[in-house]
């Protein structure tokens, strides 16, 4: 059965270990801003974990001129096929939730791909606030 990425905001302490784990494993050398999961403070001691929702009808997929964003049927994640991407960058502003990240000098977007079904952030979260169910 395909698993779903679940966030449990009530358990999140805002420690940002997930961001660090993501930016390390995804080769962005620990730069928090390039992590594919981000923590937002939403109130006193209240945090929200934000990452790609892997939308069923995804805006990013819709605007891509070369079908470079493809759903992995095993994991359910939308993945970037870097070989097919021409670097137009439209998927970033098209995502209504802000989960695509494109830099012209990188040439291809980065987004959460659920690490192939076994997300690193989930493994590193010390407070049980991220789960694959």
């Amino acid at each position: 059965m395909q698993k779903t990425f679940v966030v449990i905001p009530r358990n999140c302490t805002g420690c940002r270990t997930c961001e660090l784990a993501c930016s390390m494993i995804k080769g962005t050398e620990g730069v928090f801003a390039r992590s594919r999961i981000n923590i937002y403070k939403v109130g006193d001691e209240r945090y929200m974990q934000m990452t790609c929702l892997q939308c069923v009808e995804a805006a990013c997929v819709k605007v891509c001129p070369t079908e470079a964003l493809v759903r992995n049927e095993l994991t359910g994640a939308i993945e970037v096929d870097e070989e097919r991407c021409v670097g137009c960058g439209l998927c970033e502003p098209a995502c209504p939730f802000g989960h695509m990240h494109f830099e012209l000098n990188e040439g291809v977007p980065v987004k959460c791909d659920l690490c192939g079904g076994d997300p690193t952030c989930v493994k590193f979260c010390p407070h049980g606030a991220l789960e694959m169910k």
Partner: protein
Amino acid sequence: MYIYIDGKKISAKDGESILEVANRNEIYIPTLCHHEALDDVGACRVCMVEITHKDWGGWRNLVTACLYPVEEGLVISTSSEAVRRSRGTTLDLLMARCPTSDVIRWMAEENGEISVRYEQIDDGSKCIMCSLCVRACERMGCNAIGTVGRGHDKKIAPPFFENPENCIGCGACAAICPTGHIEVNDTRTTREIWDKKFNFVACEGCGEPVLTEEYRDYAIANRDLPADYYTTCSACKKKKLASHFDKVGS
């Protein structure tokens, strides 16, 4: 059908190019002008391979792997002496044309010794005339740039070398260029490319650049999404959604 690449028997489909079959089987053939999503034009010549066939009476030929269609029993060598020599000459010529390009240098080193047989002209241009930028622009439906002039003076440029009317400042040409030849100058509020100046749409929340105004208009006209998707930067979108989720949850 079956073909042979470097002595390995490999199954292939009618209509596939040698490069497609090689890529699918993780056999490396260097390329500069090939892109998975664009039509091949055979411009760079670094994908050269040697082919022969048992029925050809010993005849062999060098062909571009990206364009050559497979046929039953084709025997391909990706790194024979003839291939290396041909690739070496191609890379040599490319290095003479743009000595400052790192990509070309790496490829030449990988192919073997770098010989400098041709006079290097360092006019600051890194363009190898692969036309990836033109094909990417075409794919966007803009056709803002093309090849201008002929023969030795052929260049990639907007029509009449004037700032391109159809350019929307998306930057795909610069992103796809293998040598980094195309210049883009961004400030917080403007982008300059092909001598054309664009204003960025400023994020409603924080003022950070989202995309050029022309690109926004193009997206609204050509992609079926609401216009207000393009008014806010990713960070502000996330922030807004986070507090929305928080409200819904509590």
